[in-house]
């Protein structure tokens, strides 16, 4: 463990450790969204580590660029939304998806890291599903991309299993007592995707328009698909304590 105890002041030890940051730090500082730590500390460690790995011939920086680009631009909840919309409009596909989700999702070309073994669970008027990983941050990357901060937070990981109805209330979802809440704790390499209920009033919409109603939260299980009058699909996500 290195200097991560220096929380509230500049860590001058960096210079003693010989990090040779001889050009500007702009790209390490980004937009100051990191509320918990001074951005310079991990940013400098990361910069030094990447330089070292490149210098040693372990990795080509262009490979890192390609990985980041894939998860910033191609692999995200739009993928999952297309799967859901197809399941809503094609009964055969829905059956395939519920019987063998990995194969059915691969029909769209979505596969790979953190989606090697998929299971889709279906919401109905009587059942609401909720996905969590209490032990770390397991999440179906090929269909949802990388998880949001709240999904990885102690608050969600601790409480989703003991108080799922309270967590759903945090997201503005009230679940009647007669509805069964099924929580799926992703303790192995099986990754879960929730198939939300198709909203009423969407009979006239095509697959593409339906996909536009399906947000990430609905596919984790902490929200519903949006109604056509609502946009964007993630509208209920913002909550305040």
């Amino acid at each position, binding site marked *: 463990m290195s200097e991560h105890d220096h929380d509230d002041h500049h860590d001058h030890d960096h210079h003693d450790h*010989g*990090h*040779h940051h001889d050009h500007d730090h702009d790209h390490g500082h980004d937009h100051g*969204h*990191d509320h918990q*730590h001074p951005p310079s500390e*991990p940013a400098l*460690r*990361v*910069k*030094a*580590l*990447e330089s070292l*790995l*490149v210098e*040693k*011939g*372990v*990795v*080509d920086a262009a*490979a*890192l660029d390609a*990985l*980041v680009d894939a998860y*910033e631009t191609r692999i*995200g909840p739009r993928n999952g939304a297309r799967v859901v919309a197809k399941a809503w409009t094609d009964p055969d596909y829905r059956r395939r998806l519920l019987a063998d989700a990995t194969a059915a999702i691969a029909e769209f070309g979505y*596969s790979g*890291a953190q*989606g*090697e*073994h998929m299971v889709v669970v279906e919401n109905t008027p009587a059942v609401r599903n909720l996905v969590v990983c*209490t*032990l*770390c941050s397991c999440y179906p990357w090929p269909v949802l991309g990388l998880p*949001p901060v*709240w999904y990885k937070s102690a*608050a969600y*990981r*601790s*409480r989703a*299993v*003991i108080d*799922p*109805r309270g967590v759903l209330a945090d*997201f503005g979802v009230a679940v009647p*007592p*007669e509805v*069964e*809440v*099924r*929580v*799926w*704790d*992703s*303790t*192995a*390499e*099986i990754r879960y995707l929730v198939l939300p209920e198709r909203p009423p009033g969407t009979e006239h919409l095509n697959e593409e328009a339906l996909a536009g109603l399906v947000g990430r939260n609905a596919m984790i299980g902490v929200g519903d698909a949006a109604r056509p009058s609502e946009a964007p699909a993630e509208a209920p996500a*913002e*909550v305040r304590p």
Partner: protein
Amino acid sequence: MNGVHDMGGMQGFGPVLSEADEPVFHAAWEKRVFAMVMATARWPIDTHRHGLECIPPADYLRMSYFERWLTAFEALAVSHGVVSAQELSTGRADPAVPRAEPPFGPGAVPAILAAGFPSERPATAAPRFAMGDQVRARTLNPAGHTRLPRYVRGARGVVVLYHGAHVLPDTNAHGAGEQPQPLYTVRFTARDLWGPEAGATDTLSLDLWESYLDPAGDDHGKTS
């Protein structure tokens, strides 16, 4: 290990706060950490997870998610010989060590994205349990890595899915082999786990390896 990472059922962390229009990454360095782990980790995901679990509890809770990744990656890169401790502390490659070429290049990225790292292996034995079997999660407290959360140990549930044989994290995390075992989804009632305050119809399902489970057809109490 009974670390702070095993959070299921803990209380006091407050409401779940989500961020509107959240970006994939919140800082440029997070992108590089993520990509470095994906591209250069020469150890299984189980080892990566155990590396996170080995961060001291107070640090674990204080750190941001990708700061944990960075901290675990630094430690594992040294223990697996990707870099030496001296190289990590000086930031300079040791000229006496040959370069590790060829480097992981952009051409290798599509294969990772398309195939990932499946954990299923050919089954070598028939599964001990069948759909609908009553089972009890064993009371185990290993000092090393496990994917059997504390909150389910000793509880009785029912097998609802069988996934074939999967790499066992408990051994694989520690370099003791994949030792694949049958993997099941086991459903527990919320009231069995949390008591009468829990929703009467609510359930929790966990993916559990065969060695985490005992048969519970007609038992009366906890097994060990």
